[in-house]
């Protein structure tokens, strides 16, 4: 009986996480490092703090696909509910999770995060969007008017 390999991850603020290889492999970034065989002394994740890294690991644990192709014990419905609850958090954490998923290249988590933000902003006004993303309006009022005219169909 072979024990599965464990990968050690170190967050930016010094927290150590020991995860099963199958869980870690969901990060394409880590998978590439494992392939390049540079994981002996643990992998430093210098731009993700412990709190967020813990959450990403929790997601990967829940979504692990076992070697025999069987998904974790949860049914598809349960996973959906779990994902919804997982995404039910404050905007700051949500954005950090998206950035972490992007850096670690966990595609499903990135898609989930982006879809969650999309659902959240669908009905908002342009001004509210600027607040959410902390963006300045770099259009002149005349330019804004012209773009609105070109996209009149979207306001009907």
């Amino acid at each position, binding site marked *: 009986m072979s024990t599965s390999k464990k990968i050690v991850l170190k967050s930016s603020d010094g927290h150590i996480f020991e995860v099963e290889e199958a869980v870690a492999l969901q990060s394409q970034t880590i998978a590439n490092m494992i392939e390049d065989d540079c994981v002996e002394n643990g992998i430093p994740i210098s731009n993700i703090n412990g709190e967020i890294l813990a959450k990403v690991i929790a997601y990967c644990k829940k979504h692990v696909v076992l070697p025999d192709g069987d998904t974790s014990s949860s049914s598809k419905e349960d996973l959906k509910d779990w994902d919804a609850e997982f995404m039910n958090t404050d905007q700051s954490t949500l*954005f950090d999770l998206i950035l972490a998923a992007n850096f670690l290249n966990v595609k499903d988590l990135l898609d989930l995060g982006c879809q969650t933000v999309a659902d959240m902003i669908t009905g*908002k006004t342009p001004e509210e969007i600027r607040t959410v993303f902390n963006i300045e309006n770099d259009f002149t009022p005349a330019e804004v008017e012209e773009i609105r005219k070109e996209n009149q169909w979207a306001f*009907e």
Partner: protein
Amino acid sequence: MAATTRGKRRREESAKEEISPASSELPPEIIREILLRLPAKSIGRFRCVAKLFCSLSSDPGFAKSHLDLTVHRKLIVSAYNLYALDFDGIGEGVTDLVAVELNYPLKEVPSKYDEIIQRIIRERGVLGCRSVVSDEMMKLNTELYRRNWVQFIGYSNGLVCMSPADNVFFLYNPTTRDSKRLPDLARVEAHETHGFGFDDLTNDYKVVKLVADTHRVVGASVYSLKTNSWRRICDLNYKRDFEGFVAGMNVNGAVHWVFTRQEANKRVVLAFDVKTEEFREMPLPGEAEDVSRNFLVNDLSGRLCVVDICFQEHDDIWVMNEYGVASSWSRIRIRLLFTCLRPLCSTKNNDEVLMEDDDDIVLYNFKTDAWRKLRIRGANLRGGFETHSYIESLISPNLYVVEN
């Protein structure tokens, strides 16, 4: 410990309601991923947020990715006007659909009957109306025919091909109202029929045209959006049997018609492969080969189907379960009498299919055989109508990029 957890939860709950400024900024590639997951209208509205949002969402590559990612299907209805119908709420027992009038090219060009209708309305005014009610009804009915009928050629990959006037064709996006007129071609033969499809190998939209003289289908030409030109492909030789030489149906990457062979007097399905631009024949089920009956090709949830459009009421359609496999034709009996039936698309529930029958749009459940008519508000369909399903998209026929 408990106090801080409670406090944190309360803060989290209020954070969800209010819009808080982000503590981390998302890079453009992630903003693009978020935009891709929005409905088309939201994307249009957000273009004025900032230059980044506008540039990210305006390139053709974005439109293509968006089409693949967010599938929001609607109906477009032609009834001497064009309307868009959203059927999203149908699953939750919604019975009424609201038709939204669309702007489209040549919409305000009066029909050939317009002058006559105007004169009738004027004359009734002069003679004095017999009753207020009949005058109102007269006005309603005559208003209907003041515009030209819009003919649908087909829908493919985000665009509709339609003809709002005789021998004039447009590629049209019902979502953004963007349109492109196809180069006019002088009409050579007496009769034409068309089909529309997308070639995903060359990323090109194509319109195929079959021409016929009084008795024979004689040849085919194809239009390519990338070259914006027509070219003749080949000669054909089939009988031109019935009036209403209808538009071909796009299923599985090919446009289909039912024609009769010159020799053997047998009906077959003629398929035009949009990629290879070649024609091939497929056999019909034995009974459908009968040349005394007229069959129309349709798309039933991705499967080729043929419907007999005779003037007697009937209740069956033939479906080709495995594309191209003659032995896979099977007959489905429908608990609905019709002279003409056109399946449109399935709803979120895969057993339910929206269909156009003689007078209405019907929601039919193929598992339970239960069906109901849908009430359409905002459009007068009593003068005749035709519908087609389409997917909301940002694809522009005018900004078509040549490279993949």
